[in-house]
């Protein structure tokens, strides 16, 4: 899957952006690891990190992906940075809003159609964190935004590459859609 080669470059850009957003932190702040339980329910392992950057702000970074979950023909890798603003005065507790982005690379077959390509998205997110203790929290979050994609789209039985007569196949579908950028029930553990 050639398009997966673009993913490392995208990840570097996104991680750099994440580090830049978090660079305002001069001294040690809270760092939490998190995982989306809904993703796991979809057999899509998810792991994330969140760094508190101020009295009301934090930045997070998640990665999730799967290969052929529940017997479906699907491959997916997503990286998702997010910047959050916490209303009540302390991060990682109660309500927040945020700006979330994602970069995905996918190759999946849905209802006899194959969709294979990359997408990036940006949107708003929001959620609420319930405190389960000094180190634990449960987050309910959702978000929506615009996703821009470039993909190859064809029927399952099509021999798509044959249409390019030996040359490298190219995408045949581009566009943007209103898309959920986030939907999660996340367990948070504050490591420090």
């Amino acid at each position, binding site marked *: 899957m050639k398009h997966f080669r673009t993913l490392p470059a995208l990840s570097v850009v996104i991680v750099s952006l994440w580090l830049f957003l978090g660079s305002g932190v001069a001294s040690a702040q809270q760092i939490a690891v998190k995982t989306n339980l809904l993703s796991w329910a979809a057999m899509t392992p998810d792991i994330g990190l969140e760094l508190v950057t101020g009295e009301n702000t934090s930045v997070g970074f998640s990665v999730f992906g799967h290969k052929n979950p529940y017997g479906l023909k699907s491959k997916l890798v997503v990286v998702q940075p997010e910047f959050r603003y916490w209303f009540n005065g*302390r991060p*990682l*507790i109660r309500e927040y809003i945020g700006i979330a982005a994602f970069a995905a690379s996918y190759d999946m077959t849905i209802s006899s159609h194959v969709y294979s390509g990359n997408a990036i998205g940006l949107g708003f997110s929001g959620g609420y964190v319930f*405190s389960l203790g*000094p180190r634990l929290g449960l987050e309910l979050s959702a978000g929506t935004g615009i996703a821009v994609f470039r993909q190859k789209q064809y029927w399952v039985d099509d021999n798509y590459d044959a249409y390019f007569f030996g040359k490298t196949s190219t995408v045949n579908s581009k566009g943007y859609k209103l898309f959920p950028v986030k939907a999660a029930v996340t367990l948070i553990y504050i490591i420090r």
Partner: protein
Amino acid sequence: MRYLKIILLLLLLSSLYVYGQDRMLVFGMVRNPVDDNKPITDTELRIIGYNTVAEAQDVKAKFEAWQKAGAEGFFQDFGLIIETTPDLGYYEIQVYPNGALLLVYPSAEVQCKLVPVNGKNEINISFDLSRTLDESIVSAEIDARPVIEDIDVGGNYLRLSGTYPFPEKRLAKKNSRFVMQYFVVDGEKRTDTLEFRVPIVLDGDEYHATQLRRMAYKGERDPMFGYADSTRERLKALGKKYILDESFSSVTWRDSIYLDDPDKFVLIPKKLWLEDYNRVYFSDTLYEDTKRKINRMRFLEYSLEANNLDASLPEYRRRATRTKVDDVRDLSLNFLPSSAKLDPSDTLGAKQLAGLRNDINNLIRNESEGYTLKTLFVSGVASPEGSLDKNNVLARQRMSFLSDQLLSIIPRARQERMVKNFSSRVAGWEEVADLLWADSLKAEAGKIRDIVARHPGRPDAQGAAVRALPFYKTLIAERLPKLRTVKVEYTYEVYRELTPEEIYYRYKNDPSYTAPGTVLPLYEYYALFQVVKDTEEFEALCRSAINAAEKSGDRWPLPANLLASSLISRGEADTTILAPFVEEKKMVNQPWTDFKTGRKYTVNPDAVVANQVIMMLGAKKFKRARQLVYMKGLPTKYEYLKTITDCLAGKKPDQHTYEVLSNTSPRNKVVMAMAMGYMPRARKSLDELDESDPITHYLKAQYFSLDAKMRGMNKYVNMDMFSPERSKMMHELVKAFQLDPSLKNVAAGDAWILEDFYEESLKVLEDPSLLELEYCY
């Protein structure tokens, strides 16, 4: 190799054994983590060293059991121990390497902490002193408005309590923190803050969790965290709700504030606030003052008599010691010219010589009385006119005459046992010049000095030249007799114990005895104590004896105790007098040996300790008095003193105390009954009091007022106008004021007297007709 290993192992074990056998110096700082880690400077903190950890654990368990059993007073069973107290937070103690330290306050209020030594030399200790939080409770009681209970005086402590209801429901939240900070302010100056009390801090669960996160899970980074944790632990231990949330609607507080002078007027402002993560969203301030207080023991009658030491005991008796006396006489003797015979016309010289012979004779005659002549030095000087050789011969002859005069009255046996020396010399002409110079005849003095310089070492030539001076007859000749001197120095020793009467005679007739700064031998003070009767004189004598003993380095409690007894008899108090003789870390009547001098004496004689307790009570240092009266080893004959001290220091009287004290006087029956809340007994006992005593009427008024309060009446005006109790209480209070106007001030500050009742009584006092018109009695 195998044997080498065995040897090495044995060496190691033996070194451990040796290491374990010697005490070592352990030192460090003691800090309070709840107070910003400041060094603990409170000298009540005791650090006790035990030989083993097990021993320390046993004592700790006993101490904690004593606390749980509702202990009163001071725990005394720490055992035979080595202990110290921190100095500005720093401590040093000698303890075994496998021993342990126990940190403790010896009162019922406070926790203790065990620290194993584990061979360490330096051990820095954190010790939580937030003991007052034991009495602070946060609860969910509902009430309409702040209720501040009357301040209860117990010894040096003011006991506060009250309830503050939040003005709105659900004001507290689980993501909020409640803080109540109160402090003690001087009531007169108003700007002097005397003390900040430990704040009450309570966190909501969520606030607590997120606060920990913010502090990177090191709660001590938050200055309030220690207080919040302590409050939680205390409430948990009391079985109370310990987490702030919406169901909290009020706060109840209880505290004891220590004041050196419990009568001092102070203000106690309380600031409280609720804050969430972003802001303080609620705050309020309450004020409390100590104008009106409950003092249950205000009218307690008691008589504490002074306690005396047995002065006949050897350790308090002082005996005479050998004293050396120096005497110096300057005689002016005129001899006939060129002769060793005295000039018969010199009556003064003859008198001086006769006087000297008489004194020496007296010494010789009084040898049996302890006088011993030890040295006799006589030196004579002749004037320089005439030939030097002749002058030397003449000087020797005259000295020989004098030695005969003096030695003839001294027995040979004494002469052989004393040091004597007779010397003579001829004055030089430069001494004549000095005389002229001293009389401001500087030119003439200069001329004589020139002559001496021109004829060095030749007195005859000098004499001839001086005699040729024109002013010789007028200025020099008349000054030559001043150079003719005889000096007699003798020393003698006295070793005889004078009788008290002799000493008293000298004391009365010799001004040097009573001159300021005079220090007498201690045995003379001891004798004078028995004969001086005037109180003022006696006390001055005692003070002088205390100074004398101090100067001579003699640890002598007798004069201090006599002075204390005298002050106690007059109703005065001075706690500094006996302080040097009371060592709290030792037992009462503990035998002790001074390792420097080998002298044996008793530390903390019970009479001294008891007198110091009485002084402390007189000086209103009730807490200190109570600490002393509970010193280990105080005999049971001081039980009454202990009971009175407990009552005055604010300890709640138990049944035994009530029965003991109520039988001591009719007034005490009433006072103790009211203190215990036995109102019917108090009512009955009021009838037995003396009607002519103003305090009787005051107590009656107080009883009715307290009775009304107990039945829920907070205002006098709310009482039934026609009730006999209302009439009686007014009548009694006014009568008390009429008999003793000073009781007005007492009533003004008495919280058992309803405030408006007091104000009404002042009106009636001014216009007694109000009493007859409105108050039927």
